[in-house]
C-alpha cells in the first residue's frame, strides 16, 4: 500500500531544502558564468559566512549580523579574486580547481583557529512551531530559506535581463574576448561576479547555520552543489534552481524510502548516482551550453 501523504511530505520538504541548495549553487553558477572558474570552496564560503554571522549575533541584532556577514564575504571574495584567481587567468582548469581546493582548506583551518572548534548557534526571530498545509508539516526556517532563495533567483534573473550591468555580464559569460572588444571591462565584471557569490554565500551561511548550527561540518553542504550544478548545467541560473529542486526531492525520497531498506546514508550519494545517470544522457546538464570544440 503506497502512502501518498508520506510521499507528499517528503516531496514538500525536499522542495524546500532543494531551494536552499539552489541558493548555494547560485553562487557557484554566477562565478562560473562570468569567469569559468570552478569553485570547490563554495561550501567553505557558506561556512565562513555562517561563522561571521554567528560570532556577530552574540553582540548585535540579527539583521546587523547578517549584513556584517554579507559585507565580510563580499570583501573576502573581492580579495580572493584579486590575489588568487587573477594570476591564474588562462591557466588549465586543474590550476583553478586546485586553487579553490587550497582556499577551501585554508578557510577551514582559519575558521577553526579564529572561531574555535565548537558548534555555534544562529538564532533568527523565526517561530519554532511548524507550519501546516493540510497534512504537510513545514518547518518555518526551511520556509524562510526557500523564500529568500526565490527572492534572490527572481532578483538575479531581473538583473541579468533588464540592467545594463546584467547585459554586460551576460556578454562576458558568452565570450570574454568579444566582450572586451566591445569596451566591457572583463576584470571588473569578474570581480562583480565574485562579490555576488559572496552575498549569496553569506546568506546561505546564515540560513543553513540557523538550521544546522555553525561548525566545520557546515562546509559539507558545499558537496551538494556539484550534483545540483551538473544536473542543471554549469552556466545556467534556471538550471541551478531546477537542479536544486531535483536534488532536494531525490535526497528526501531516498532518505524516506531507501534508507530503511539498506541501513541509512543513501541521502548523501543518491544525488551523485542520479547525476552520473543524467550525465550519460546529457553530458552538459539539462540547461547547459553544448560546447563545440575546435582543433
Amino acid at each position: 500500500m503506497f502512502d501518498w501523504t508520506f510521499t507528499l511530505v517528503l516531496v514538500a520538504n525536499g522542495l524546500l531544502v532543494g531551494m536552499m541548495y539552489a541558493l548555494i549553487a547560485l553562487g557557484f553558477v554566477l562565478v562560473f558564468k562570468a569567469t569559468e572558474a570552478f569553485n570547490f570552496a563554495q561550501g567553505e564560503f557558506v561556512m565562513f559566512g555562517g561563522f561571521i554571522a554567528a560570532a556577530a549575533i552574540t553582540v548585535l541584532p540579527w539583521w546587523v549580523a547578517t549584513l556584517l556577514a554579507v559585507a565580510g564575504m563580499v570583501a573576502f571574495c573581492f580579495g580572493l579574486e584579486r590575489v588568487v584567481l587573477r594570476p591564474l587567468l588562462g591557466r588549465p582548469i586543474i590550476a583553478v580547481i586546485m586553487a579553490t581546493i587550497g582556499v577551501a582548506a585554508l578557510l577551514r583551518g582559519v575558521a577553526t583557529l579564529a572561531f574555535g572548534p565548537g558548534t555555534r548557534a544562529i538564532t533568527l526571530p523565526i517561530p519554532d512551531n511548524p507550519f501546516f498545509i493540510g497534512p504537510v508539516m513545514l518547518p518555518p526556517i526551511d520556509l524562510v530559506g526557500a523564500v529568500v532563495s526565490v527572492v534572490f533567483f527572481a532578483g538575479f534573473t531581473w538583473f541579468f535581463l533588464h540592467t545594463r550591468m546584467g547585459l554586460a555580464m551576460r556578454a562576458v559569460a558568452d565570450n570574454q574576448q568579444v566582450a572586451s572588444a566591445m569596451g566591457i571591462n572583463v576584470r571588473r565584471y569578474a570581480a562583480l561576479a565574485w562579490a555576488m557569490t559572496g552575498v549569496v554565500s553569506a546568506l546561505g551561511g546564515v540560513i543553513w547555520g540557523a538550521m544546522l548550527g555553525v561548525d566545520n561540518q557546515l562546509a559539507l553542504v558545499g558537496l551538494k552543489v556539484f550534483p545540483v550544478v551538473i544536473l542543471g548545467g554549469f552556466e545556467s541560473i534556471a538550471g541551478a534552481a531546477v537542479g536544486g529542486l531535483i536534488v532536494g526531492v531525490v535526497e528526501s525520497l531516498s532518505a524516506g524510502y531507501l534508507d530503511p531498506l539498506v541501513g541509512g546514508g543513501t541521502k548523501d550519494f543518491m544525488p551523485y548516482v542520479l547525476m552520473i545517470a543524467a550525465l550519460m544522457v546529457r553530458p552538459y546538464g539539462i540547461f547547459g551550453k553544448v560546447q563545440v570544440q575546435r582543433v
Partner: protein
Amino acid sequence: MFYRAAGTFKTSYAADMAFYPLPVSRRALAALLVLLVVLPPLFASDYVLAVLDLILVAVVGAVGLNLLTGNTGLISIGQGGFMAVGAYTAANLIVRAHAPFWIALPAAGAVTALIGTMVGIPSLRIRGLYLTIATLAAQFIIEWMINHVTWISGGIQATIQMAPPVVFGYSVHTQAGFYLFLLPFALVAVIAAKNIERTRLGRAFIAVRDQDIAAEIIGINIFRIKLIAFAISSFYAGVAGALYSYYLGIANYEQFQIDVSIDYLAMVIIGGLGSVTGSILGAAFITLLPVVTRRALEAISGLLPAGLDVPGIVPELRLCLFGGLIILFLIAEPEGLDRLWRNVRTYFRTWPFSY
C-alpha cells in the same frame, strides 16, 4: 646528481633512450640506492622510519595519480576511494583465504583497476570538469558501499584486522622491517611509471591530454587510452591502499576519505604535473607537512602565548599551510617542486657560466 655533460656522443638508439646517459650519474644513482637501502634501517630512529614508511606508501599512490592527472589530463578526486578498494580487497583475501602478500597486493591492484575502469567509462561521453565530479561521485559511492555492505567490510565499524606480511619466512612488523618491505614497491612503481611514459602508451596519454581531438585524428583511440589510464592509475592506488593497510595492521575506510584524495591531488600539483620525480618530491612534501608543523610549533613553544593548546591547533595549522602552499605553488611555481629541482641542477651543471 650534478655533473658536466660534455663530449658525449650517442651511437645507438638505446643510448639515446637511456635514462642516465652518463656513467657518472648511473654510478651516483646506484650509490644513492645502496644508501637508501642501508642507511635508514641501521641509523634512523623508529619515528623517522615511520615517516619514511608513510612517504613510501604515498609515493606509490602519487605516482599512479600523476599518470592519470598529470600525463593524461584526467583530474580524479577518487584516489582515496580507489585506495580503499585495494585495502579491503587485500584485507578480505588475507582474512578469508590467508593469502600471502605476493597474491594479496597484485589482486588488490587488479580489483581496483577493474573498479577504476568502470569509473572511467563515463569518460566516453563526458570530459573535463564533469568527469572530475564523476570521480568525486565514485569516492562517495565507494565509501558508502564499504560502510554498508557487510560482505566487504565485516560490519558497521568497517575495520578488518590484517596479518603482517611474511617475507621469506620473516613476519614484518617493525618500522625498519616495513621500510625494507615498502621500498621495493615504491622503486618498482617509480621505474614502471618512468617506463610507461616512454612507450607508445605514454605518448598517447600526453597526446590525449594536450589535444584530444587532434590525438584521435592521428589514430589514437581516445576512449581506450582514457580507460587504460584509469586502470593503471587505479592499480597503483589499489596497491598503495593495500600497502598502507599492511602498514597500519588494519583496513579502515576512515583512512581513505575525500581528504586523502585531495592530499594526493596536492602531492601531484606541488610535485609537478606529469613528472615522476615530482610525484616523489610531492609525496614527501605533503607527508612531511604535519610532522614539520608539529616540530616547528614545539620548537617555538616558548614564544607562544601560555594558554595555547599546541597539539590541538596542529591540524588546523596544517590545513592553513596546506591550502596556502597549494595556492602559492600554483601562482609562483606552476611546474612544482620538480621544476625547482631542475633549476637547482641546471644552476650547478652550468656554473659558473650560466649562459
